[in-house]
């Protein structure tokens, strides 16, 4: 057998190697992002630390500052997204998340209606070894309550007045409506700002420029 093998030329050896490797490859199941595994200890420690959350006011500030180093992913469906979404948010429905082509390098903020689906998506992405993913704490419900329709302090003191001004400015930026202090209409019943322009973000500014990887 060995003599036979040594009698083969370089090319014939290459051909044989290719054939055998190809043959064995029939049973290959190459990893393409399907099944994920998760280290229980590592994940629960990270969840317990609670560091992977970001507040609605922080995100509002980032958007106003024009920060382009993160992607805001909205996990809700088409109807909810069309009705209202945060400026610069990209819609990737929960079910489409595994195939969405997200990259572990990116900084991602996940938002959903109340944050529950965002947390579920966070676990999935954690299992795929993404470490730059954050949950929008409280989801869009909290965004509406604290950014769009913040309750301004009635009879404000000096410091409170400054805070009121800040809340008013942030709310105005997102076309919201600040609420006066005291009993006001429930947040849920307030009219959401209309989205005039379809989801395309302003050129270059908001979205991190997805590097064109052509050839």
């Amino acid at each position: 057998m060995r003599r036979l093998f040594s009698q083969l030329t370089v090319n014939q050896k290459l051909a044989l190697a290719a054939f055998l490797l190809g043959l064995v490859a029939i049973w290959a199941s190459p990893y393409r992002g399907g099944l994920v595994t998760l280290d229980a200890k590592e994940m629960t420690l990270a969840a317990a630390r609670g560091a992977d959350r970001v507040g609605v006011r922080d995100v509002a500030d980032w958007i106003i500052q024009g920060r382009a180093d993160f992607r805001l992913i909205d996990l809700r469906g088409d109807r909810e997204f069309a009705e209202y979404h945060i400026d610069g948010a990209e819609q990737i429905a929960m079910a489409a998340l595994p195939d969405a082509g997200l990259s572990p390098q990116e900084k991602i903020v996940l938002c959903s209606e109340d944050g529950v689906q965002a947390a579920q998506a966070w676990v999935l992405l954690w299992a795929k070894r993404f470490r730059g993913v954050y949950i929008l704490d409280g989801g869009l419900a909290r965004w509406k309550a604290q950014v769009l329709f913040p309750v301004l302090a009635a009879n404000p003191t000096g410091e409170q007045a400054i805070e009121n001004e800040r809340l008013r400015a942030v709310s105005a930026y997102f076309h919201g409506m600040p609420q006066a202090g005291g009993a006001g209409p429930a947040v849920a019943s307030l009219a959401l700002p209309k989205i005039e322009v379809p989801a395309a973000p302003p050129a270059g500014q908001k979205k991190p420029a997805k590097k064109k990887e052509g050839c």
Partner: protein
Amino acid sequence: MTTKTSAAAWEPVPVKAEPAERELAAPYMNPYLAGVGLGLVLLAAFVVMGRGLGASGAFNRLVVFVLGGLAPEHAKASPFFASYLDGPPLKDWLVFEVLGVLAGAFISGLLARRVMVTVEKGPHASVGLRLAMAFAGGLLMAIGAALARGCTSGQALSGGALLNLGSWAFMLSVFAGAYALAYFVRREWR
């Protein structure tokens, strides 16, 4: 005689020595070994970068770089050029890769004593014809590569290794197109 020929079909064909200019040059590497080398470089790109090789993109970027300097508004108005304007056009993976290609080819040529200033052409074509055809060929090729989103290195090699559907369709078309036209340009080469 026939059985000997078919069994040895994978063996290198003895190449007739070309005229004087090739006397100093070393023979080319076994194409299968060169292919394995190339394949390993491609695999390295997959493993290290998560992308394949390429070349046509770098030329597009050079054009966009020049246009961006001379007539930026005009450049941005074309969706094709605008797509390369996400940041400085020349600060790109492909551009640096192509610079590397120049360097690597030069090194190999130097080692094999194959570097010489010359015009590659067939025996019956004039230098002028050859250079004009080279330009025309490049022009067509750039258009084809832009349409296909890649050239032989990016689409055919890289996409081929990843079993990309479009890449294989592209690859077959390239061979089909080249074989179809070969007869009509034979004057240039034979």
